[in-house]
């Protein structure tokens, strides 16, 4: 039961962060926000796949897909942080 709530909360919070950052990107055109938004969207998706993997389809192992999503999200964030965190 706790598992449902944790995954749900993480997915919802990530989505909210992605939405806020995307809105900020449209207002300010600061690329850092775009990269960060994509990261949080990816993390939301990762949590969604985690939910599916653990609860909806417990027989399957979606570990590689989850890992690829998480890695992609983090890489995208790092691009933004390294490349776009200053003028």
């Amino acid at each position, binding site marked *: 039961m706790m598992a449902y709530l*944790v995954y749900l909360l993480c997915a919802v919070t990530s989505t909210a962060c992605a939405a806020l950052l995307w809105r900020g990107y449209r207002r300010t055109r600061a690329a850092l926000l775009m990269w960060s938004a994509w990261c949080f969207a990816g993390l939301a998706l990762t949590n969604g796949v985690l939910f599916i993997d653990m609860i909806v389809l417990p027989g399957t192992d979606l*570990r590689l897909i989850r890992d690829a999503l*998480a890695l992609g999200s983090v890489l995208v964030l790092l691009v933004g942080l390294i490349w776009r965190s200053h003028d």
Partner: protein
Amino acid sequence: MTDPFITTAMFMEGAVVLGFLCAALFFLRFWRRTRDRLFLLFAVAFLLMAGNHAMVSLWQISGERAYFYLPRLAAFLLIIWAIVDKNLPRRGAPDA
């Protein structure tokens, strides 16, 4: 343990942990530069995410023992706190 799937998964999971750690370091640096509490909270959140992914990967935790995901829960609660904190009305000197 030469299963290529497991090797690939461990490889990626290691990279993810390092990625979160790097991100946390960047947020720490931003906090030092701006004194904006949001960055500190994000830094700790990403540290927790790194630790959580490391735990899960090294101990091969499966989802049923959800208490192993408590660090992840804590991380996202911190992010929520950061957002709430940013939107509370300011009293006294602004926090920048």
